[in-house]
């Protein structure tokens, strides 16, 4: 019995709409789990319910979609005119920092406690582009995104690590990347956008 067969059979149990929602988690609980995952026992129970209750799954997926879509919606669209210059200065500063610290184990990143996520230069890897950033204190998960000039998503991944491997992407020099750190307290820190251009 492969996974697909198991899934199909399980769906016959979980794909129906319950007569009442009395036993379902509240909307606020669903939103907390969707936006600030902790992995504790109470959240596990909620997620188990979501996995086996069709209407709760629909609600949960809507809530997490809203949570994930919002940050990307504002990038580059409403930035004041001075932000690109500031971002460029930040990139230069980060590159300088990496150069100065070359030889150290900076790629894995030590907690910095600074109020943004600090990106490190992308590097070529065998099967794509390796994206690295400094760890942020109390970060639960990082979301890394690669977008084109119009803000369309070309690649995204979520990880608890400070490195992600993006596949080889066409016209990478026009792409930009950023990292969003979700912290233990539910707050979010976002890095500036940086070019995906890799060193030759």
């Amino acid at each position, binding site marked *: 019995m492969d996974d697909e067969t198991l899934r199909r059979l*399980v769906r016959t149990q979980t794909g129906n709409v319950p007569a009442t929602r009395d036993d379902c988690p509240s909307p606020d609980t669903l939103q907390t*789990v969707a936006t600030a*995952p902790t992995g504790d026992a109470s959240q596990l129970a909620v997620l188990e319910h979501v996995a086996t209750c069709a209407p709760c799954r629909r609600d949960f997926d*809507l809530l997490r*979609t*809203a949570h994930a879509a919002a940050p990307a919606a504002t990038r580059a669209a409403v930035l004041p005119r001075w932000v690109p210059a500031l971002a460029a200065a930040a990139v230069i500063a980060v590159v300088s920092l990496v150069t100065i610290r070359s030889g150290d184990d900076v790629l894995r990143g030590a907690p910095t406690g600074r109020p943004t996520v600090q990106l490190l230069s992308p590097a070529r890897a065998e099967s794509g582009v390796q994206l690295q950033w400094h760890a942020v204190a109390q970060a639960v998960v990082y979301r890394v995104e690669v977008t084109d000039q119009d803000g369309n998503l070309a690649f995204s991944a979520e990880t608890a690590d400070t490195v992600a491997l993006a596949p080889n992407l066409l016209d990478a020099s026009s792409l930009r990347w950023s990292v969003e750190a979700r912290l233990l307290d539910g707050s979010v820190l976002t890095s500036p956008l940086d070019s995906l251009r890799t060193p030759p």
Partner: protein
Amino acid sequence: MESTFRQMPGPPPSGSSIESVIQRFGRMVLSIGRRAGLGESDMDELIQGVRLRLWRTQGDGEQTETVSATYVHQAARSAAIDIVRARRTVIASASQSIDDTVLHDRTTAPDLLIEEQETATRIMDAVNELAPDRRAAVKLHLAGYRREEIASMLGWNDIRTRNLVHRGIADLRTRLIALGLAPSGAS
């Protein structure tokens, strides 16, 4: 259904920045929502909710450069949870029982459907006997969530998620075999 996001008229004369944010938000919702399996109507409703909130508070054009990421995030959270709350108030007239499914599914023989329901019940019973972490990972996996989604939802790293899904499924298969549900294609 065509998206409301794409059906809306062009941006208001004084709100181009807001419209830009809404357009971008709409694209992200469509991209992420489709991968999550959301229906078009749900995505349209969410986009429209954010549109209304942004226009209501920022639509005079005077603050268009100050539409912050935080504000859009709050608008999206607020719109999404309002949709979810509204659904809860709807009388569950569309409730559909398992028996209804059996009666109305004309593509599978009724006796086969009942047999599958019984098998599914036994599978879920076996899943519920797994250790809590594995149980959660397996339920989300069988619900169709991808590994990176499961990791994100549970706040786990990729390695832990992969291990728990893998071991949980292996554990489940062992239990199913013990229950006499020996899978023909077991791996």
